[in-house]
């Protein structure tokens, strides 16, 4: 036992160590533990057989099994059977990372009539057998601690019910650019009412202003007109222009959006919100590449307007334009500045503009001053085409950017060509076009504070996880699509907003929805309504309520995101997150430290190979011992070994290579057909 346990509470004056007094729950008594071999991914390093035997002796453990593949159908069926036959009240699965199979095993529990939250996943693969494949014995000891921690934790697990709430089948889409408009159509088609809320007088956002679009060659305005025509034909979509989002209240399933349209104040009741507010173009600073200092320096957006409105000849400020220099990455990829990211679409957009110039006007020379060309995917064809047209590409680096100066009425560019020994080039052009990147909208703070959407260090809105939970935010019921999340081209923007639309539809479809009950809860006995928790909660989830003649904190379970930030600030330790209680966390810590009585000698008999060769394979994977026995006094090829041991040949190859490195086996020349190497035991 810990030396401090006995007098823990008397030693410190700090209130942070207060023991919790309520939240008492019945400990689980009949636990089933399943330790997975994962084929060999775990059992090659961790002695799962020994562990399952050891664990079987633990208090409250009724069943302890090692299984070949825990996630396989047959094992799942066995688990259901065990839970029923043995009346298990909790299960622990020690296998891969919880990211993979939490739902699989929760469903096993549900099928067996056990509450899905009475199950704990223990990661003995990514965080044990693989991480410590170099030290199998230590990995086994660690796995024991991890499993013990899982058992301890599951003892405190509570049967939890998902939080069920009714959902309005209506969606507020904020921002009627192409992402919002396109998502509105899908949402309406799936049976939701859509309020499309646009700040400006017109719908269509940046795309409507974009002129000719790359890859499809259509005009942005035409695409928007077509889409808008379709929207007007759908009665389930209500469009508000000149509309401002004033206030948002409520939570998933039941938000109230207060919107003012001119002088009218509206209250819209929606189940979910999709934010598609878009981006701003980076505005070059005065003097940045001569911007505003020279009349002949403009942004790509200004240039596109010029191409669109000029006929026959490309003329700017009365001067015919015969040469153009495009400077790339303006406002993007600033290793020292705020915008560290690549804006993704600007390389393609600039090259596309250059192609448009060639198509419409003849004899215009183009110099592309780039850092790297990122015309990824099919956009590469634009680059090929432009190179073929004779455009000149000059690579510069951030630390030595091109200089733009006005000399004798000429706009002169000086740049070091990094692909030609940094040779300094100096030439004059008629027009300099700054290929500006994307930045978050200037009003994005306003939106993020009203909807409480977190922003990243790049100041764009944050998804929960770009790979595992894209388009979702930590605010339940609030989704983000398009460029408000980060730089995207039109295709990608629409893809993300449509992904968000179908996510929203899945949650609203049934008219009711279930939320995971991993939220904060307050101990009514000890809470003194000091407001500390409410002050740190960024989701307005904590409000006072009267209970037994005093005020206490109350958590709104549908707005609480379960972050736990309120926990450590409470002076009386009266607030905690379900599944992350003191009992659960502290008992896990105890479990890690439980002394493992792992028998390191257990297999020593087997390890001595019968012919008397003393090969110490202690602590190495079992398959090594099998290979060693098979090779005893024989030389075999990989296919022969594979047949004899029933192990796949690529697995064998891998092990033989390692065994060779450890000096256990060595190659013994080619076989008769000279097709395979033979292996033998090293003396």
């Amino acid at each position: 036992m810990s030396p401090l346990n006995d007098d823990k509470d008397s030693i410190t004056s700090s209130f942070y160590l207060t023991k919790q007094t309520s939240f008492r729950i019945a400990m689980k008594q009949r636990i089933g533990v399943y330790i997975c071999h994962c084929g060999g991914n775990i059992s090659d390093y961790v002695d799962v057989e020994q562990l399952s035997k050891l664990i079987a002796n633990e208090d409250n453990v009724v069943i302890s099994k090692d299984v070949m593949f825990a996630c396989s159908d047959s094992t799942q069926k066995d688990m259901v059977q065990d839970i029923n036959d043995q009346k298990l009240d909790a299960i622990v699965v020690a296998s891969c990372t919880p990211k993979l199979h939490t739902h699989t095993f929760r469903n096993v529990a549900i099928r067996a009539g056990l509450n899905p939250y009475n199950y704990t996943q223990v990661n003995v693969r990514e965080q044990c057998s693989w991480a410590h494949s170099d030290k199998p014995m230590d990995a086994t000891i660690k796995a024991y601690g991890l499993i013990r921690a899982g058992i301890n934790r599951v003892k405190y697990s509570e049967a939890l019910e998902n939080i069920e709430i009714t959902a309005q089948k209506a969606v507020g889409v904020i921002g009627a650019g192409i992402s919002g408009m396109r998502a509105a159509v899908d949402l309406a088609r799936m049976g939701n009412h859509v309020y499309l809320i646009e700040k400006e007088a017109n719908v269509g956002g940046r795309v409507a202003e974009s002129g000719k679009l790359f890859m499809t060659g259509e005009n942005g305005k035409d695409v928007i007109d077509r889409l808008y025509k379709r929207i007007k034909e759908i009665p389930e979509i209500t469009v508000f222009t000149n509309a401002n989002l004033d206030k948002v209240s409520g939570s998933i399933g039941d938000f109230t959006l207060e919107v003012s349209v001119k002088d009218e104040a509206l209250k819209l009741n929606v189940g979910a919100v999709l934010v598609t507010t878009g981006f701003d173009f980076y505005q070059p600073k005065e003097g940045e590449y001569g911007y505003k200092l020279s009349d002949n320096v403009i942004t790509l957006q200004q240039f596109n307007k010029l191409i669109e409105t000029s006929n026959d000849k490309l003329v700017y400020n009365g001067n015919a334009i015969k040469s153009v220099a495009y400077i790339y990455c303006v406002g993007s990829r600033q290793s020292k500045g705020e915008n560290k990211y690549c804006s993704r679409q600007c390389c393609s957009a600039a090259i596309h503009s250059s192609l448009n110039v060639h198509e419409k006007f003849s004899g215009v020379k183009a110099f592309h001053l780039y850092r790297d060309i990122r015309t990824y995917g099919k956009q590469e064809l634009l680059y090929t085409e432009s190179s073929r047209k004779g455009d000149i590409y000059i690579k510069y680096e951030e630390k030595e950017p091109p200089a733009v100066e006005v000399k004798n009425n000429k706009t002169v560019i000086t740049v070091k060509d990094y692909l030609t020994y940094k040779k300094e080039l100096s030439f004059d052009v008629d027009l300099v076009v700054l290929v500006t990147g994307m930045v978050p909208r200037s009003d994005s703070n306003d939106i993020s504070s009203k909807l409480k959407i977190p922003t990243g260090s790049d100041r764009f809105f944050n998804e929960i996880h770009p790979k595992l939970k894209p388009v979702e935010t930590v605010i339940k019921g609030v989704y983000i699509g398009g460029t408000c999340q980060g730089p995207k081209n039109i295709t990608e923007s629409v893809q993300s907003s449509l992904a968000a639309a179908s996510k929203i539809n899945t949650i609203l479809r049934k008219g009711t929805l279930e939320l995971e009950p991993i939220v904060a809860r307050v101990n009514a006995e000890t809470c003194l309504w000091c407001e500390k928790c409410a002050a740190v909660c960024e989701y307005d989830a904590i409000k006072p309520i009267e209970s037994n003649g005093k005020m206490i904190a109350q958590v709104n379970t549908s707005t609480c995101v379960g972050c736990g930030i309120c926990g450590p600030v409470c002076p009386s330790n009266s607030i905690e997150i379900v599944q992350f209680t003191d009992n659960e966390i502290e008992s896990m810590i105890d479990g890690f430290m439980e002394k493992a009585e792992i028998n390191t000698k257990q297999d020593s008999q087997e390890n001595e190979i019968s012919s008397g060769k003393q090969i110490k394979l202690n602590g190495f994977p079992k398959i090594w011992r099998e290979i060693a026995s098979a090779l005893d006094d024989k030389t075999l090829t990989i296919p022969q070994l594979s047949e004899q041991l029933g192990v796949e040949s690529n697995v064998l190859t891998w092990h033989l290579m390692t065994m060779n490195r450890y000096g256990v086996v060595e190659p013994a020349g080619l076989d008769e057909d000279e097709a395979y190497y033979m292996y033998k035991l090293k003396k």
Partner: protein
Amino acid sequence: METQEFKPRILVFSTDKISDPGIDQAGLRKIHYSPSVYTISIPCSSGIKPRWILHAFEQGFDGVFIAADGTECSYSSKCSEHTNSIIVEAQKIMKERNINTKRIRMAAICSVCAEPFVNHISTFSKILQDLGSIKNEIAEHKAPSLS
């Protein structure tokens, strides 16, 4: 006294959405680190209670490493501040108990931070090796109350 072979035991608090995948990736890519490192995953590093940290020391962990989300935290833009104040709070109690405050360490670990994680752990292990086992400090503190 500790021998050369003293392997510090480290408790890692890691966030389930951001740093867990980073730590998992170290395993996936078999970038090895000390097997006396144990990880508990939590939603957000700002939710770690100082008493959990203290409990870890009492139970014999030589160090506590907080794998935070830093600016990537999806819950709070003030996550680093919150986590910092938790560490400060924990260190106050550690001082009262004569536990060396260097036994807590925090770093931002992202979802692809396999190498950085392993590097942080090995640096931290070295620091803890120099400090020696927690048992010395807890025993030191314990001595007066026994007499």
